[in-house]
Every structure is written in C-alpha cells, then in structure tokens.
C-alpha cells in the first residue's frame, strides 16, 4: 500500500514562504489568489494486512515524526491496489 501524506503549516502559523509566493503570483497577474500555504508531500510505501491497519500506522508515523504538532497539520490518503481512499 502507499500512503500519500500532505503536511501543511497550521492556519495560526505564519507562512512567510506562502506569503512570498502569493505576492509573486499577484505580480504575474494572478489577482484571484487570496492565500498560498506551502507544505510537504510525503509518500510512504508500507505493508499492512488491511487499510484500517495501514491508516492506524500512518497516523502514528505522522504524530511521532512526519509532522510537528506544534506547527503543522497533516492529512493522508491510502492507495490500495490502485484505489485511493481518503
């Protein structure tokens, strides 16, 4: 199975990279952009007996290492045999 994990800065955390990219987009004429948040994308291939088990394990990985709960939120989807489940 493959876990596709997205880690983003929490809404309360200032994201200077996002602000700078938003300004860059505005300079290019993308005036419709109101906000940009920059995070990380992490792909984890893992063995699991069930999607439920994979979900529990990935949850633990995010909590213990992949995201810092002080400053980041995370979400992920599990892909099993080509089926994506959020």
């Amino acid at each position, binding site marked *: 199975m493959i876990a596709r994990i997205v880690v983003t800065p929490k809404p309360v*955390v200032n994201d*200077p*990279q996002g602000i*700078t990219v938003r300004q860059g987009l505005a300079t290019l004429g993308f005036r419709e952009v109101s906000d940009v948040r920059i995070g990380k994308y992490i792909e984890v291939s893992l063995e699991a007996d069930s999607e439920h088990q994979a979900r529990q394990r990935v949850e633990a990985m995010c909590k213990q*290492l*992949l995201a*810092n709960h*002080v400053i980041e939120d995370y979400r992920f989807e599990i892909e099993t045999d080509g089926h994506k489940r959020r």
Partner: protein
Amino acid sequence: MVFPGTWSDRDCGWVIDQVLGAELQYLWHKDADLKGCDCIILPGGFAYGDYLRTGAIARFAPVMEKVSEFADRGGLVWGICNGFQVLCEAGLLPGALIRNSSLEYRCQWTNLVVERTDLAFTSRCDEREVLSIPIGHGEGNYFADPATLSRLEQRGQVVFRYCDSGGRVTNNANPNGSTHNIAGIVNARGNVLGMMPHPERCSEAELGGTDGLKLFRSVAASAMQVLVS
C-alpha cells in the same frame, strides 16, 4: 555533542578548554553514555542535514535518550541554534522554530536583554543586562501556541529577548519574527536552556566581543558549585 552535520562543536570546545581552561569531552551521537559531563551542549549546525524539519531526526540519536534522562535528573543541557531546534523537537523545551519571517538566512550581531540571572547559565550576568551576541540562522523564528506562550511568560521562562542597544524590546530589533522577540527560553526547572544566538562566537576579544563568555563562565561556576556542595 556532535551529530553528523553539527558545525559549531569545535567553536564551543575551543571556548571550554582554550578560553575557560575547563575540561572538555566531545560526545558522538552514537555514544551510550555522557562521560560524566556536568553540562551537555548541543551546538549549532545542521544535525542530520536538518532533513524533514530542523532537529527532527537528531532527536532519535541514541545519545539523546541519555540527554533526556540527564535533564530529568536536573543536569544542565544547553542548546545553541540548531541545538535549540533539537531540544524543541525532542520535547525538552516547548514550541518550535520556524522559517525567519524575512525568509533570509540572517547572520548578524543582535542585542539580547537578559531576563533571568538566577539560572546556572546566566548567573554572571547583571539584571536586565544587554548582551551583544551574533546569530546565524534561517529558521530561528520562535513559535508557540498562545496557551504555551502565556505559560512561558507567567513562569518567567523567557531568558533572552531581542532588543535594541538600550534594552528596549522592539519590532526593529527582532531579526527573525520570533513571537514576543524570544531569543532563548528555559524549561520550568531551569536546567535546560535553548537559544538561537551563538555565545561561542563572541567569547574572545579577537572575535569582536566577549559577552558570550559570561554564559560559559556562569555554567563553569555552577558546575564548580555542584562539585563543592
């Protein structure tokens, strides 16, 4: 303490044994014990390349378990720059250090007002003394949620704040966007200090200042007290 990617270890070591004349031990990240040290310094650099997040991987170094136990027993642990980031990731200090608000790597002198002089790390400083100590970092912007922040302030855990040369804590004096101009904090017990500025880079007149030496002297004096008592 030396992790792969640490780079200020020799600078700290120089101050300890060449300037202070104190006993120095280098600890490697795979070491199983702390070799009887009175104070563990986690120096600046990019431990484990700062992969994933600053300090995120270093906290799993075999020696870090010993450092946590040492801190639990009241041992002095001092994180400087990357070492501060490691202590936050390891949960030995609250909060986190995020990208500087300017997005720039800042390498410059800063003024710090000392808000605690009752600590082993600052006993040789005067009340509200302003120290001139350089920084060199891209991710030194201290962040903590509002509840943690008010707890830190109430308990007086903010040790150093960026200020102007007159000791005034202003936005202009803040080099990285840190909340409340925080440059260094201590744990509730007062034995684990994390700070972004580099005292080891200003401990000899040849380097432009000696304010950093006050912190090293404070630690050395308190280690002596422990020996005597």
